[in-house]
């Protein structure tokens, strides 16, 4: 898959994954790598970027299994950004689906 395209989609997925409840890094990365084939390590640069842009805040929380984990919480502006991306995606994917349907049936 095209790298830029994949990056944009991963951004959207990460925001949506963290919108229900706060997540720690491994959780986010694992959810993505279950669905897409990807180098897991490249998700952290993405998380850093989204945090630097103010879409996430992070905090450390103790875990039952051992040392603390870094959690990502979606901010208000992150929420807005996520909705923008979701709208874009719905618009974009319905266009692609339409073209595929028309092209394959014709």
């Amino acid at each position, binding site marked *: 898959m095209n790298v830029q395209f994949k990056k944009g989609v991963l951004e959207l997925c990460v925001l949506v994954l963290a919108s229900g409840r706060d997540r720690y890094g491994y959780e986010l990365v694992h959810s993505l790598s279950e669905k897409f084939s990807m180098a897991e*390590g490249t998700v*952290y640069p993405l998380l850093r*970027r989204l945090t630097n842009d103010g879409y996430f805040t992070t905090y450390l929380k103790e875990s039952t299994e051992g040392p603390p*984990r870094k959690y990502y919480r979606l901010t208000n502006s992150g929420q807005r950004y996520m909705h923008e991306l979701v709208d874009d995606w719905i618009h974009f994917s319905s266009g692609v689906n339409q073209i595929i349907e028309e092209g394959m049936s014709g």
Partner: protein
Amino acid sequence: MTKEEFMRSLGSHLKSLSAKERADMLYDYEEHLRVAMEQGLPEEEAVASLGSPGVIAKELLADCEVPEADKDTSVRNVSRAVLATIALGLFNFIVVLGPVLGIFGILVGMYCTSVALVIGPLVAAIGLAFAGAGTAFLNVFAPLASLWTGTAVFPLLLAVGLGLLLLAFTLWVTKWLVRGLVAYVNWNVSIIKGGR
């Protein structure tokens, strides 16, 4: 690759960053591998699924270097900007100035030619009209008639047409040259500011 080897390799790729920033970045991978192994993943496998440290480092560096350079007005950056300004100044003076003045001269020539081609025939036409009026001043339509039927009319119209064409062409050339010049000046400014 073991966890230790991965962390060491990633760390060495991030040497150009401040210790705090590097530690911050390394922490995420340290935690990731720790959690993966807590979940029962073999060390080798957990490390392998992260991907190559070189690629990861490239992504991390790409995100943080640009904003840093914009903020950084250290002595080195300022002296670099001054050097760039002097070098560019010399380059512009010796290599760029001559051709630009030459092109400017050609443009001025083209404008003058096109204006002369348009204005000249008009003046000539007025002259012809007056000449016609002189010989047949009783007939109001005579000057116009002599103008339109006269053999001089065709070349005059041709000249006006050519003049207008040349004017349009020159305006078009000017537009693109101005764009080029603006782009070149912007490029100069970006070089002086830090070339990004």
